């Protein structure tokens, strides 16, 4: 048989890895400049293709060669799972994104009240569970290399000459270069996703090419392969379900079902799948296309599995060559060495993709949930932002070395697919706690812990230990007679349960115990308040959006909580990143400057979620708790928990809102009401006490009382108006508004005011203005408000007011410029606040202090913005802009 020189194979492999690296750097640069290449449903779908590893590429052919169609459940399961993507997966994604969850350990821990114990347990299960899977990739590449070059690296050579170890270390180095170049608090790796998508294309095309080569190059099409196989009595059973599993004439429906279920769960819960499908997802809508396009990818990559397997068996005969390397040995047997090299690169692609993403995902978990919490306790008060990257790199090397160790211990005795299934069964243990936690509010931390522990223990006993025992690393008789001769504990016939294959047997026991304990222990005790709060955030994620944490009352341990939180963030994120984060927050919360940030529940939550990206949610919660006490449940939270009915919840939310408004109203309005009331009372008392008051003075006083009363009723009306708007109960209409006509109407209404002050109003506007969709009466209110403001402030007798209307593609802008005293810079921010009026007390004109805030609310309701420009001595210029069309939420149109 032909072979290739080792140097060529290595050269091609390294060149291919370098290409991947280039693509990743390019995608990272594009992302940095805001032109992401992965924001696309096709790229997303291809990145999920990381599901297809060396298992698919080499193992499936091996499986098909020994048991026919039984390689298929591994792909039918994920197909069914993806059909649930729009419900189950979308919910996972929504939860993960709102809670800033970055790994599967984080997800489980966060759901059950940010439990540190659960985070550790899930991380350990993932780490141990995934080792066989990593070993599978190493084994596949190593045996591929052996076939391709004709050399035997592993057999008999001392470990330092073992090519598999070299491959493991090379992959570790590559993964480190790939995924741990810098720390991103959101754990997103755009470059990696782009490279994985490319790998998916390469492995699919390579596999299809091999398939076509075998089917049409070596035979006369697939039908020919099948016809020849059917004619061969040794191969004919492979084309049927019954009889293809080693002489058993009945179809093992239970095993078929178990494999399908296992594969479906693995698609969702393997650490790397969680990474690409949930953490790296840019846009939820991509799930829609992926829900059919990913199954299509699976279908395509499986099309030629059976033809290749049968073709290999027909060509070499049974037992003459290892079916797992048919994709390489078939082209080699035809002298097509370059084609075999292409096939090897495809297989390398499949294996490296898995190793890279899995190692990055697992190293993130180990770092965030195992190492950082420990470092945190061991080195209190230090700058820890330098820790995560080296830790992650070390974990990646460790993971591959452990994978290599498993390969040495158990790898030789098993087929690729069987090794992979051991890992699948391990991650399937996450299903009860995770899916249960997403739909069942009664699930508790204790239940999840009990279920996971039992499931993991049974998995170890019934699947992991036997895999090691079969290679001779455990005493003979451990499998056949049970440990210490106790037959009931035989790992593969636990409690005497016989008649199942070892995988179905293990899955049955582990999931049974897992689900049973999860449910039973959860039912034994009601969830704590903390568990319940997280339960609501998870289960009702689609109902609670935008609401965030109801700002409960915080009890601070610290005297200067803001400073402490900033210090904390700097410790974990680094000084620069922390400064950026607080500056961002100040901008978004409206505080403007970092020093002016209100240290409230929202801030705490923000800091906590940012930290969660770097050190995991459980650690972040613990760290933040050193500054602030557990946010106590507000009455709103309690009500939400008690009332299941969403209608009641909605009413409660309205009540909460009204309650807040009431408080606002009382505190600010009392003061405003008192001033006119006092003067009304004073004048009334004067008139009562002095019956002989001259008629004209009495008349003057009554006039003042009337004016004050008018001001009072105006105030009350505006307060009500404001309250309605803030509670979202304002009546809004949408109609085409002619802005020219609007200005004319407003000027007419205010003409008397300007005439009294002797002011001249000029209007500048285009001849043609498109109409704008808004509420005409409300806009009129805004305009009249601005005009009457101008009228109040212009100098008597020499007032000049300029109204300009201008338009562009986006919308229209109206500005009202006066030549009054202007607004001093320190007051410009205040004029839009409630009950703050411009001017000092002496020359403050009569007004309610609500006109501008209301106007601004109206403009903002229609998607616009209002501003004040005023330079000293240049008068004031109030203006606002409105977009032509604006979708207003909750609009009754």
């Amino acid at each position, binding site marked *: 048989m032909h072979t290739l020189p080792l140097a060529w194979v290595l050269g091609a492999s390294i060149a291919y890895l370098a290409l991947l690296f280039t693509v990743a750097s390019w995608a990272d640069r594009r992302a940095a400049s805001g032109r992401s290449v992965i924001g696309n449903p096709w790229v997303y779908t291809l990145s999920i293709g990381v599901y297809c590893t060396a298992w698919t590429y080499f193992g499936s052919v091996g499986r098909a060669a020994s048991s026919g*169609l039984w390689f*298929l459940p591994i792909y*039918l399961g994920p*197909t*069914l799972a*993806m*059909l*649930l*993507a*729009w*419900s*189950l997966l*979308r*919910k996972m994604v*929504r939860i993960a994104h709102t809670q800033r969850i970055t790994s599967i350990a984080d997800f489980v821990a966060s759901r059950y009240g940010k439990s540190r114990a659960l985070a550790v347990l899930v991380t350990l299960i993932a780490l141990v569970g995934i080792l066989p899977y990593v070993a599978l990739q190493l084994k596949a590449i190593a045996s591929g290399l052996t076939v391709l070059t004709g050399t035997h690296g592993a057999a008999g050579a001392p470990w330092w000459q073992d090519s598999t170890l070299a491959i493991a270390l090379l992959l570790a180095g590559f993964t480190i270069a790939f995924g741990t170049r810098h720390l991103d608090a959101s754990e997103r790796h755009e470059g990696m996703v782009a490279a994985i998508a490319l790998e998916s294309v390469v492995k699919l095309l390579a596999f299809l090419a091999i398939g076509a080569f075998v089917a049409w190059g070596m035979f006369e099409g*697939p*039908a*020919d392969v*099948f*016809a020849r196989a*059917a004619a061969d009595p040794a191969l*004919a059973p492979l*084309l*049927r*379900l*019954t009889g293809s599993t080693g002489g058993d004439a009945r*179809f093992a*429906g*239970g095993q*078929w*079902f178990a494999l*399908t279920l296992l594969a479906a769960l693995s698609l969702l819960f393997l650490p790397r799948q969680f990474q690409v499908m949930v953490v790296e997802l840019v846009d939820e809508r991509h799930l*829609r*296309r992926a*829900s*059919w*396009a990913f*199954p*299509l990818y699976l*279908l395509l990559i*499986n*099309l030629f599995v*059976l033809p290749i397997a049968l073709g290999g068996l027909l060509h070499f005969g049974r037992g003459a060559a290892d079916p797992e390397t048919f994709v390489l040995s078939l082209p080699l047997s035809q002298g097509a060495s370059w084609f075999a090299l292409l096939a090897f690169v495809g297989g390398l692609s499949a294996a490296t993709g898995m190793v890279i993403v899995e190692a990055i995902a697992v190293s993130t978990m180990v770092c965030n949930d195992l190492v950082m919490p420990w470092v945190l306790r061991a080195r209190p008060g230090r700058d820890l932002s330098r820790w995560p990257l080296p830790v992650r790199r070390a974990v990646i090397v460790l993971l591959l070395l452990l994978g290599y160790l498993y390969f040495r211990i158990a790898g030789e005795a098993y087929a690729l697919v069987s090794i992979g299934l051991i890992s699948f069964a391990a991650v399937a243990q996450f299903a009860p706690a995770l899916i249960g936690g997403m739909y069942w509010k009664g699930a508790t931390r204790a239940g999840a812990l009990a279920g996971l522990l039992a499931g993991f223990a049974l998995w170890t006993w019934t699947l992991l230990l036997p895999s090691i025992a079969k290679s001779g690393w455990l005493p003979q008789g451990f499998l056949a007679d049970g440990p210490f001769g106790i037959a009931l504990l035989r790992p593969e016939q636990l409690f005497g349960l016989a008649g199942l294959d070892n995988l179905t047997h293990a899955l049955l026991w582990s999931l049974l115990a897992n689900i049973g304990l999860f449910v039973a222990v959860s039912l034994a005790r009601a969830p704590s308040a903390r568990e319940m709060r997280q339960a609501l955030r998870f289960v*009702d994620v*689609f*109902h609670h*959006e935008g609401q965030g944490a109801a700002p409960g009352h915080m009890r601070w341990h610290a005297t200067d909580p803001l400073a402490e939180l900033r210090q904390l963030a700097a410790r974990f994120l680094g000084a620069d990143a922390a400064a950026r984060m607080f500056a961002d927050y100040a901008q978004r919360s409206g505080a403007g400057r970092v020093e002016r940030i209100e240290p409230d529940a929202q801030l705490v939550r923000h800091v906590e979620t940012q930290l969660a990206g770097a050190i995991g949610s459980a650690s972040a919660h613990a760290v933040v708790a050193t500054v602030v006490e557990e946010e106590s449940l507000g009455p709103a939270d309690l009500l939400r928990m008690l009332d299941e009915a969403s209608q009641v919840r909605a009413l409660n939310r309205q009540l909460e809102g009204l309650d807040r408004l009431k408080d606002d109203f009382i505190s600010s309005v009392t003061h405003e009401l008192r001033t006119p009331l006092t003067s009304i009372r004073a004048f009334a008392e004067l008139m009562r006490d002095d019956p002989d008051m001259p008629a004209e003075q009495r008349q003057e006083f009554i006039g003042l009382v009337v004016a004050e009363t008018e001001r009072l009723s105006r105030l009350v009306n505006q307060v009500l108006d404001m309250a309605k708007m803030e509670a979202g109960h304002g009546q809004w209409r949408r109609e085409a508004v002619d802005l020219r006509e609007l200005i004319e109407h407003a000027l007419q209404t205010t003409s008397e005011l300007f005439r009294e002050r002797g002011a001249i109003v000029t209007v500048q506007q285009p001849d043609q203005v498109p109409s704008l969709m808004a509420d005409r009466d409300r806009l009129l209110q805004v305009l009249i408000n601005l005009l009457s403001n101008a009228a109040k402030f212009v100098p008597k007798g020499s007032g000049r007011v300029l109204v300009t209307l201008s338009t562009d593609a986006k919308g229209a802008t109206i500005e009202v410029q006066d030549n009054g005293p202007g607004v001093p810079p320190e007051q410009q921010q205040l004029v839009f606040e409630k009950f703050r009026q411009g001017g000092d007390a002496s020359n403050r004109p009569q007004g309610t202090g609500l006109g501008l805030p209301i106007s601004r609310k109206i403009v903002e309701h229609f998607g616009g913005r209002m501003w004040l420009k005023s330079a000293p001595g240049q008068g004031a210029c109030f203006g606002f802009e409105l977009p032509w069309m604006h979708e207003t939420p909750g609009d009754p149109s």
Partner: protein
Amino acid sequence: MRTAPTRRARLLGLAALGAVGFNFPLITLWDRAVTWFGLPLMTLALFAGWAVLIGAAAWIVERGDARDEDDDG
């Protein structure tokens, strides 16, 4: 007025159909020593059924008319 069934509900139905169709005992219906166009029936049935499932999912997802509200998943 009749409202269109949600995309979510349709996909759930399809998943249920697939789960039943690709499992014991229905799957054994195709397990016969028959060939169609030279391809064994069992293999053909699995891949064709799979393709039909994918086609139906694409049809449900890519058409614009199904309501797409934020219902609880």
